[in-house]
Structures are given as structure tokens and as C-alpha cells.
């Protein structure tokens, strides 16, 4: 039986306080015909019938096992070694939450500690938290953190237009209640130099993404120095797999490094769950958002793990906490940790290299198809922009008939970029798959 804490008398007191007579009056704002709509549900099914129906429904999905995909734009299809699933499926690990009690949670705490350590190694930073919901919220938290580091005396976050459009939208949602404006991303042509021109004594931070949303590697050498000269912080949004091959942002002076961690062993899945990684320098660690697990010794001198730096958090600091979300994605972070441990430094580099070479092979082939052009202004990693002879939406409809999921239609994020497709190639895209894509493009555009 459910526990009902309020009796009729309690409810009456509350209704009186609200100035309504009955509970039903609270729903007066909902149009009457929508309050109790008739649900036209089919007849009940037996379990085998239901399983058959659900299986038939799932067959209508265009999934990555049956289709060749060139869609990335923030969610990436990479191989997940079997050991990842095997380890994270252990019931001892099955929680999305950070464990408060070290005496019963050493395994999960150690998993998070190792995740943090590997994120630090990958990003070149000193400290990592236990993760955020996704890349978008990690970007938003980075701006909030930078705002706190600057003691809320600065009010503008300068953001590259080539940061993932959804991350930019999420950041704007987050800072609504703060006295912070996100600026600089109003035109796709605002390049690094233009953004640096906007960095001044009111700038909290410069947020740049590399590889950027168009797949290009940004040349960030010297950028941190110029940002720091203006007293602002440099926030770099990075693809964790690209860091297996390219210089970590810590090497070129980033203050905060964040990004989407899905590519590290987590399946591509609509709506997630994904994870956001978040790392910073030691001198800023007291301003870092989120949970942090630390290594210590117990009374007998044995190595152990506990939540640390908790005085930053909302249950202690209330409204002055570094973040009002101190939850994390423990199981996804563990997945990322097992993935990184399974591949190791060399394995991560190898995956990144294959992505790089396959993407460049695909770009070279596409450039030879009449009507198609590869727009390569800068070096790219695993995604690149293709100018098409027709609207991307129409092209993608044709490609679906070929069993191909086409690339991202850039017009969705950047008005004025009609006929431009963002193509993604990973180690899961075979050479045969690329050649089949080329054949389809030739046919469709002929």
C-alpha cells in the first residue's frame, strides 16, 4: 500500500492557501476535452503476441546493423569491444548514481577514479569530475564554472559558431538565470581571429570546439595566451577519440576541457544515455562542477576511494554551490573507463588513425563524383563538409532506399548553407561501404 502523507484536513489547509475549493480546480487551465481524453487502445495481447508486435516495430528502424551510416554530428558509431558490456553488466555496478558510502562502494568509486584519471591523461588536464549528463550540459557547466572563477564580475561567454549547435542552445538555456550572455556565434563566418577580437575585459571565457562541428581541426596555438591576456578562460570542446591522435588541449593552455564521451564505448542511441566529460587545471578545482572521487588510505593504511571536495556541492553550499547538478552518469562513465582501459593508449591512437584515413579516402572519392565538392578549408578528422547538387533532405531520402543513412543536413543548424552535407566516417565504415556510398551518389545525382 502506498504511503500517503496527507490527510483530508492537510489537503484542505493547502487548498485554502491556494485559494481553490477542490483539487480539480487546479486543472482548470487544461481545456476540458483534454482532461480525460478517450484512449483508443487496441485489445490486450499475450506476451508472445506482444513480443512479435514489438519485434515487427523495431524492424522498421533504420539501424546501424542493417544500414551503412554517414551520420555523425555529435553521436558516433565506433566499435565496442565485448569486454565493455561484460564488465558494466555486473550487477554490482548497476547504478546511474554516485555512491555516497565508501564502505560499500569501493568498486564503483574505483571505477570512477580510474575514469577521471584516464580523462585527465587524454585531455592533458590535472583534474576531472565524475562526468555530466552529456556533452551539451558539460559545455554549459564549463561556462557557469568560468563565471564563478571570474567571481561573476564578467558577463559574456564568447562562443564559436562551430561549437555543436545543440551545445550552444543548451548553454543558452543554462545561463538564462545568470547575468551571462552567450555571444560570437551569430554568423558561421566568425572565425577564431574574429572571436579573439571580441574577447575583452567583460569576457568570461572563449568556447571553441576542435574538431569543430564541421569536422575541421582548429589551430589553437597561441589562442590561450591571447585569451588569458584579457583575463578570460579558454574552454575547449573536444572529441575524446581525436585526442588519441592529436595534441591534448592541456598542451596548448586550455583551462577547461569538456566534450561528449559517448564515443568511448557507449552505443549510439537516440536520447542517450550519454555522458559529458569535464576536466580542468588544479588551481581551478575548487570551482569545478560535479562529483569528484579521490584516492586515500583507510585507518589501516590501505588504498581506498571516497568522494572528495564535497564542500563545493549543493547539499553543503546550497545556492553558492559550484553547480546545482551534482549527479553524474556513473554507468556511462564506467563504460568509458573500461573502453579506454581495453584499448589503451595505442588502441585509441589506432582507432583515431583508421577514422582519419577512412574519412580522407571517402573525401577523395566523393570529390570525384560529378556535382559533388568537398569543402576542406582546414585539416579534418573524421567528418567533412560536402557540397551537393541538390538539397540534402532530398538526397538523403534517395540514399535511404539504397540502405544508406546520409550525412547531417547543415541547413538545419546554419541558415544559408543549403545543399551542404556533413559526412562522418569512422572505423566502422568499411571501404566497401564507402564505395557503395559513392555508387549511390553517382546514381542519385545522374
Amino acid at each position, binding site marked *: 500500500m502506498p504511503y500517503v502523507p496527507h490527510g483530508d484536513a492537510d489537503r484542505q489547509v493547502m487548498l485554502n492557501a491556494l485559494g481553490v475549493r477542490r483539487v480539480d480546480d487546479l486543472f482548470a487551465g487544461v481545456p476540458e476535452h483534454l482532461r480525460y481524453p478517450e484512449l483508443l487502445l487496441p485489445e490486450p495481447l499475450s506476451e508472445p503476441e506482444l513480443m512479435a508486435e514489438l519485434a515487427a516495430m523495431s524492424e522498421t528502424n533504420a539501424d546501424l546493423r542493417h544500414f551503412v551510416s554517414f551520420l555523425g554530428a555529435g553521436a558516433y558509431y565506433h566499435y565496442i569491444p565485448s569486454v565493455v558490456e561484460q564488465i558494466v553488466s555486473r550487477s554490482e555496478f548497476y547504478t546511474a548514481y554516485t555512491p555516497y558510502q565508501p564502505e560499500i562502494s569501493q568498486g564503483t568509486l574505483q571505477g570512477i577514479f580510474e575514469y577521471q584519471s584516464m580523462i585527465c591523461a587524454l585531455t592533458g588536464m590535472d583534474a576531472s569530475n565524475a562526468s555530466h549528463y552529456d556533452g551539451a550540459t558539460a559545455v554549459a557547466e564549463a561556462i557557469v564554472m568560468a563565471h564563478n572563477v571570474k*567571481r561573476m564580475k564578467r558577463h559574456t561567454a564568447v562562443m564559436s559558431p562551430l561549437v555543436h549547435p545543440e551545445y550552444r542552445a543548451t548553454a543558452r538555456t543554462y545561463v538564462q538565470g545568470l547575468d551571462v550572455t552567450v555571444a560570437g556565434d551569430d554568423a558561421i563566418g566568425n572565425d577564431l581571429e574574429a572571436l579573439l577580437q571580441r574577447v575583452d575585459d567583460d569576457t568570461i571565457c572563449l568556447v571553441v570546439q576542435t574538431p569543430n562541428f564541421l569536422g575541421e581541426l582548429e589551430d589553437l596555438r597561441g589562442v590561450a595566451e591571447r585569451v588569458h591576456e584579457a583575463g578570460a578562460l579558454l574552454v575547449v570542446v573536444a572529441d575524446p577519440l581525436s585526442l588519441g591522435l592529436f595534441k591534448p588541449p592541456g598542451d596548448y593552455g586550455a583551462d577547461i576541457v569538456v566534450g561528449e564521451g559517448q564515443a568511448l564505448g557507449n552505443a549510439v542511441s537516440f536520447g542517450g544515455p550519454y555522458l559529458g566529460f569535464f576536466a580542468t587545471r588544479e588551481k581551478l578545482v*575548487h570551482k569545478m562542477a560535479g562529483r569528484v572521487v579521490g584516492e586515500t588510505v583507510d585507518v589501516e593504511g590501505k588504498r581506498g576511494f571516497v568522494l572528495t571536495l*564535497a*564542500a*563545493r556541492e549543493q547539499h*553543503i*553550499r546550497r545556492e*553558492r554551490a559550484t553547480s546545482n547538478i551534482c549527479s553524474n552518469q556513473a554507468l556511462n562513465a564506467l563504460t568509458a573507463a573500461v573502453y579506454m582501459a581495453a584499448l589503451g593508449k595505442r588502441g585509441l591512437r589506432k582507432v583515431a588513425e583508421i577514422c582519419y584515413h577512412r574519412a580522407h579516402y571517402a573525401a577523395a572519392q566523393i570529390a570525384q563524383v560529378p556535382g559533388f565538392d568537398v569543402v576542406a578549408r582546414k585539416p579534418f578528422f573524421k567528418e567533412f563538409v560536402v557540397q551537393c547538387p541538390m538539397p540534402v533532405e532530398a538526397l538523403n531520402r534517395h540514399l535511404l532506399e539504397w540502405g544508406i543513412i546520409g550525412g547531417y543536413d547543415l541547413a538545419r543548424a546554419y541558415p544559408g548553407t543549403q545543399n551542404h552535407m556533413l559526412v562522418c566516417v569512422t572505423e566502422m565504415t568499411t571501404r566497401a561501404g564507402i564505395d557503395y556510398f559513392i555508387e549511390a551518389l553517382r546514381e542519385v545525382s545522374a
Partner: protein
Amino acid sequence: MKVEKQLLYAESHEWVRLEDGEAVVGISDFAQEELNDVVYVELPEVGDTFEAGEMFATVESVKAASDVYIPLSGEVVEVNEALEDSPELVNQSPYGDGWFVRIRLADPSETETLMDADAYAAYLVEEADKGEH
């Protein structure tokens, strides 16, 4: 619990030592005892300016983080860098090596709003009585 003579105190338990238009600021023995073991002190930067009553530093103990308020308006001319590596100085020597910042006063007349040692001692007794109810 010690209340150092010659210092001025604020109701939020910071002390001030006046020196030629400048003031050294720290937290009282009572405040450090209430906080327990201090593990981190976040200080402002030289050049930052504050209005009297503004939060200018944060003290973290193992289980709490407390804001510290500047008792007088002014510009920070020096911060106690020793606290970065040795935050325990706040516990060991609240009126000495555990000082927080030195500020150049914007308005010396503001000192009239602060308590002298006797008034602060009486204030602590008064507060303790309130707490017992």
C-alpha cells in the same frame, strides 16, 4: 576562546587591524573554532575592490564551505599566499599568520560601524545565550 585587543570586529566574525589607511583582515578565533579544520581558503586577487559587507573569500573545512565578508570597503593590496599551501594557519594563528588580505581603505570613516574587542566579547556572550534557547 581569544578576543585580541587592539582589533576591530564585525558581527560576521571578521577582524580588522588598521595600519596607516590600510587594514589587515582575518577571521576571529571564535570563527575558526566554529569552522573546524580548514582545508582550503579561496582568496581574492590583488587589485580586486570590494564594498563593505561583500563576500571576498571562502573558507572550506572538511564538511562545510563558508563565505567571508569584507568589513570595510577598499582595494586588495596583498593576500596571504601562505594560506594556499597551509590553510591550517587559520586554525593555528587566526590573529597572526592566518590573516587573509590587506586592503587600502576607500572610506576610513566606515570603521565606526565595527566593534572593539570588549564589544565583540560581549556580542559573543550575547550570541551564545541566544543559541542556548
